[in-house]
């Protein structure tokens, strides 16, 4: 073998070894790949969770993580409930987003669109198996090339609450509570005929209600909204019919959720879509209504809705391995279960829902609600499309439906207008 030949082989071997080393070092950013030993400091941001109820939980959680990983430091910051989106906007615009942030899929979608968030499916491929598939899918954005932009954290869904006294007063059978939208509308119309001071519905439908009715919300590519299809029109027509028969007040065209809860507590509203918090709230703040409370599954014709919260990792974090490791730690099965018990929510980690806390009945009404909601989680879907982001889309939908109900335009025109607006915004951010 000539010297040149040996040199050539050595060069090729060297390049091959170098490539292997490089691919091993830079291609994978999982905490394990980073060498197993984590160090440094990261900032972890939650949303309205620093209070008497949750502060001890997070302090213990952080202390346990830091003990397991000596040399690490987690700085926990919490933002108040009001103006959280504004805070995220300001941080994102200034490039000052914390390393691990608590947020829903809508905010995550916008930030992922701007390239601010880490695609955890790519960076941490093993993570997928640790969570419920539907939760993982909820954080996987088809409109952004199918990346997953957050570790699923907790889920929330809840039952429907009914005022049985109003059912009796307005000629309805309190033992036949509605379970589908058709049943709800039918009973609402009966109620409108028999009572002029009580109502079944007090709010315009939101995008997740369209999903629950079986309306296709987006195309398969996740690039266009489609809720103006005939099924969507049919859904809003039921509201229009109800409004015409005085089963909806003019206030209902503009009500937000807080007003709906107030109306239910005041005994003027027969149906309230609630969460697992609602039962306790009604017990404490509306004891008279609590006495005649009927509880049923969440109204849905297709599948019930649930909401998801996630922990996202900043793509520009200076300590990405630690950020990922901590986000995974907070969302692991044991910690999710502990948090779910504390916060009356449901874990998104695989297998956690089989815990007897979600399956064993002890006869308490609160347990019954929890068990029914847990059973509902198994068939529920996160209907709210993450691309239907920001309050502007939701406000426009509500306004357009109100205009259709007031007769200013047809239902089709109203939904077309809303879809056009949302598509335009989506395209502009893409």
């Amino acid at each position, binding site marked *: 073998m000539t010297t040149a030949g040996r040199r050539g082989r050595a060069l090729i071997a060297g390049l091959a070894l170098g490539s292997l080393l490089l691919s091993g070092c830079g291609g994978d950013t999982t905490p394990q790949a980073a060498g197993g030993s984590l160090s440094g400091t990261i900032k972890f941001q939650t949303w309205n969770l620093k209070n008497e109820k949750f502060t001890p939980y997070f302090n213990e959680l952080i202390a346990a993580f830091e003990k397991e990983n000596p040399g690490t430091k987690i700085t926990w910051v919490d933002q108040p409930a009001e103006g959280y*989106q*504004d805070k*995220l*906007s300001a941080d*994102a*615009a200034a490039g000052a987003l914390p390393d691990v942030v608590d947020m829903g899929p809508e*905010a995550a979608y*916008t*930030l992922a*669109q*701007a390239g*601010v968030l880490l695609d955890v499916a790519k960076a941490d491929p093993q993570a997928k198996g640790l969570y419920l598939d539907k939760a993982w899918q909820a954080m996987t954005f088809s409109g952004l090339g199918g990346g997953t932009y957050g570790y699923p954290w907790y889920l929330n869904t809840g039952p429907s609450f009914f005022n049985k006294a109003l059912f009796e007063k307005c000629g309805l059978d309190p033992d036949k509570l509605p379970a589908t939208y058709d049943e709800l509308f039918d009973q609402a119309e009966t109620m409108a005929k028999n009572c002029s001071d009580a109502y079944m519905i007090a709010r315009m439908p939101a995008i997740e209600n369209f999903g629950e009715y079986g309306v296709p919300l987006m195309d398969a590519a996740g690039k266009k909204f489609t809720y103006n299809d005939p099924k969507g029109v049919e859904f809003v027509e039921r509201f229009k019919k109800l409004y015409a028969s005085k089963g909806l007040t*003019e*206030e209902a*065209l*503009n009500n*937000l959720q807080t*007003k709906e809860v107030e109306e239910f507590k005041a005994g003027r509203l027969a149906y309230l879509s609630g969460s697992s918090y609602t039962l306790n709230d009604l017990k404490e703040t509306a004891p008279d209504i609590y006495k005649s409370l009927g509880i049923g599954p969440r109204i849905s014709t297709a599948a019930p809705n649930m909401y998801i919260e996630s922990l996202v990792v900043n793509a520009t974090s200076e300590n990405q391995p630690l950020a990922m490791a901590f986000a995974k730690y907070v969302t692991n099965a044991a910690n999710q279960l502990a948090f779910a018990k504390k916060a009356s929510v449901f874990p998104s980690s695989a297998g956690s829902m089989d815990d007897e806390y979600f399956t064993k009945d002890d006869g308490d009404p609160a347990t019954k609600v929890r068990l029914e909601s847990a059973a509902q989680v198994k068939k529920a879907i996160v209907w709210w499309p993450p691309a239907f*982001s*920001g*309050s*502007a*889309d939701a*406000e*426009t939908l*509500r*306004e*357009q439906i*109100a*205009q259709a109900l*007031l007769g*200013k335009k047809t239902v089709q025109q109203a939904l077309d*207008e809303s879809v056009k607006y949302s598509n335009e*915004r989506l395209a*502009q*951010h893409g």
Partner: protein
Amino acid sequence: MTVSAQHKISLRWGRRRLHREEEAAPATHRWRVTPWLFLLPALVVIVVLVLLPFLNTLRLAFTDSTLLRSGEFTGWENFRRMFADERFGTALLNSTLYTVCVVPLMVALPLVLASLLAGTGRLMGLFRTTMYLPVIMSPVVVGLIWTNMLDKRGLVNELLATLKAVAEPVPFLTDRWLLLFSAMFVTVWMGLGYYMVIYLAALANIDPSLYDAAAMDGAGPVRTFLNVTVPGVRSTMGLIGVLSSVAAFRVFGEIYVLTNGTGGVGGGDITMTMLIQREGTGLQARTGYAGAISLVMFVILGGLLIAQLVLQRKQRTS
């Protein structure tokens, strides 16, 4: 040497000295820099907080910029979109109507009030303080008070029902026009005290002998008010007209609170500033589009101010 010759020499000497001082560069330099140093803090504030943001808004208006994307130049696209946007038409109409209705009331009512409460008695002081109270209240608190008052089951409807004046509750907060007029009422109620104080200061500058002369001529209170008070505070009326026009066209808080932040049923009560807020805030803010709406608003307000200034100047010359 005569006195006259001495005087001439002295004058010539004085002129030369002045000329030499003018030529002395450092002194001249010092005199030119010093005023700017005094102005510097104010200039920095104006440039950083007013001029630069304004120029940035101007730039944004011609781009498809979003909060997280700087965007590209799109020419007049935002303006084309704006004029096709039904919400823009509604917002422009509402803000214009607000200005047209509120400004005359804001100019006239506080003047009447100030004329009535211009005395020095202890009771007058109490009345003036009472009238000023809404000014120091937060618009949100005021909005909440009036929301509860005007609600379907609020105090006003209860009162009307008790008096059997209405068969059905008046939809103050759900009917598009009633809500807009309710918000105008709240604005006037809040602003009365503020403008009254300005008028009180102006009234104090009217020569009391004019009132004596009017009384000797047998003028009654109305005639005295129209022929003495109004001409005496005409320039203040102009100032209040300008201030209240700008405030009325930019109305936000009153409608925002009365509609619970929604812009009314079907968005029928949305105003220009509410539209800008909706488009220009949040993670999905369309800063380019919001900038274009802001620019149109600026042009309208600028036009309004120029028109008022021209009108006032014409009145002064005539």
